[in-house]
């Protein structure tokens, strides 16, 4: 198992290096003069030249690349043109909110998708199966930003069942201020025993998380169904039945475990997808995460910020894939014993 993981790790490192290089390429292939936008619209040519020198744009290309790499790995991800703060610190502030949203969404997606996939696979072709399959495809076809708006309108503004926006009720900041432990509001409230705040953060989390969960839930349900149907004809299933195990065990435990491997691969894929989906949803729910930061940066054409976010998400995605590889090796002995 260690050789397998060592190979995956080495591959991940290569990919990350390539990712950094690609963001550099994008940054410099872009039309427009970074020095000019840094210096501002009213800068004189001398100021633009000085900006170019400051940003290191007058050096030969290999040197620029080397400096870029060095910068990235030492934590210098450039300075945001708009906020004039280091991009990395902006990202660090905004990231936990997005991660919290994605993780909550994935939990919901698993809790909904796996059982539905199982039910679907139990009696394939029957009405329940057709309905669940149609529902899954619906989930996968949903325009997230639209779903967010609709749900927000219906549940928050018309029915007043759920809060409209934000991570928690601002009023609570006065009565039950939140102490920062992990940076994740739900966890912080939990760990500090701040129950009113916990309730508030959870209720604020529901709508955005459900919206982001639509796609993964649909995907997971389809994967579970496909995987189980692929293996349901195999001899070991008949053997399990012949030994006197009820269908519930045969499907729920024995067939399901075989499905975890592809499902966990799907989760890694979907993590990246969902993280970017949150970008669309955050501005609608006033969620102070990477998405809001990215959207704002797009609006001001803040290139370092845009690239910083891109790099961050890509690296998070590579790490997520690596984690899934480890989990797969633990669950599925076939991978370990190779």
């Amino acid at each position, binding site marked *: 198992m260690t050789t397998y993981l060592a190979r995956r790790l080495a591959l991940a490192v*290569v990919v990350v290096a390539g990712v950094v290089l690609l963001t550099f390429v994008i940054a410099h292939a872009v039309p*427009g003069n970074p020095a000019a936008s840094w210096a501002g619209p009213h800068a004189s040519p001398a100021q633009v030249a000085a900006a170019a020198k400051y940003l290191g744009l007058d050096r030969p290309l290999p040197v620029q690349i080397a400096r870029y790499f060095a910068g990235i790995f030492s934590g210098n991800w450039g300075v945001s043109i708009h906020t004039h703060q280091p991009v990395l610190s902006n990202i660090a502030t905004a990231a936990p909110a997005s991660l919290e949203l994605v993780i909550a969404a994935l939990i919901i997606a698993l809790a909904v998708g796996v059982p539905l996939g199982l039910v679907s696979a139990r009696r394939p072709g029957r009405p329940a199966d057709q309905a669940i399959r149609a529902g899954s495809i619906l989930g996968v076809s949903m325009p997230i930003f639209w779903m967010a708006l609709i749900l927000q309108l219906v549940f928050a503004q018309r029915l007043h069942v759920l809060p409209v926006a934000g991570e928690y009720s601002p009023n609570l900041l006065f009565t039950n201020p939140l102490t920062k432990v992990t940076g994740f509001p739900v966890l912080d409230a939990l760990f500090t025993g701040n129950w009113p705040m916990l309730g508030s953060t959870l209720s604020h989390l529901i709508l955005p998380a459900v919206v982001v969960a639509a796609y993964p839930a649909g995907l997971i349900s389809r994967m579970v169904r496909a995987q189980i149907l692929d293996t349901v004809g195999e001899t070991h299933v008949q053997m399990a039945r012949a030994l006197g195990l009820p269908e519930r065990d045969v499907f729920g435990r024995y067939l399901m475990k075989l499905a975890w491997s592809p499902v966990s691969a799907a989760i890694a894929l979907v993590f990246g997808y969902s993280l970017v989906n949150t970008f669309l949803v955050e501005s609608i729910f006033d969620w102070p995460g990477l998405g809001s930061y990215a959207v704002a940066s*797009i609006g001001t054409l803040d290139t370092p910020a845009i690239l910083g976010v891109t790099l961050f*998400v890509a690296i998070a995605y590579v790490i997520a894939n690596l984690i899934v590889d480890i989990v797969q090796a633990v669950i599925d002995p076939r991978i370990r014993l190779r």
Partner: protein
Amino acid sequence: MIEIPEAPAPAPTPAPAAAQGSRGWLRSNPLLAVGGAISALIVIAAVLAPLIAPDPGDAGSATHPFSVLKPPSAHHWFGTDQVGRDILSRVIYGARVSPLVALFVLLIACAVGIPLGIAAGYFGGWLDDVIMRLTDIVLAFPALLLALALAALLPPSMTSLTIAISATWWPWYTRLIRGQAASVAGRPYIESCRALGISRRRIIFRHILPNAITPLIVQVSLDVGGVILTASALSFLGLGAQDPTPDWGLMVSEGQTYFTTDWWVVTFPGLAILITAFAFNLLGDGLRDLLDPRRVILR
């Protein structure tokens, strides 16, 4: 002791599998039929837009200041938007925008991905390694993100949108074709082809490509929905279509501010995106079930 005595005449259970004739086909592939029908309708609507839309001018830069934000009525089935344009017409014309983007994106993705895939799969060796690492790197970015970054840095237009999405979409096709090419290229009969002196080009076109067509068709039909969603998402963020183009994503974005009071401005364009993506996904799914020999449809 076990006895298995007389097991007499057959006890028939009606099996819906393998029914003959078109009605049987319809019943055993309901999703494909529905998806195909709706997709066809959308394409027809796009083509016949000038004839179907009640106010074709509204899809352009017409404005009607006196009919601003009117709710759905007999005159305007979907209501009017913030500058008084008929939303139904704009939605119909929108069927020309996103699907067309999807078409171009997938064409480019294939045009780039297929040759690279064949090169990687057929020739193998260092070329394979290089190309695969390249696809790994591009695929390390979630698709929407890379498209977002590119689109953000290019001047906003449908062209930039198409380029940005194509740049993120081609690796899947390279991977797909590479897998096909590699598995075919390794087979003994290809060796004998080469031994007989058959040119590489013939081998590629007559042996490798035909095998790859089926999974390619399935992948393309599955991807149409995805590209449409990506394109509308980017337009929603303001990175693609610009006013007055009747792009559905843009319409949702423009209607956002009025949404709480005038729900129809956002609802109908978004619904169009949903139905279109849904239809093409159903189609793709159905095609996959139909064409993939490994799939066993249990009854």
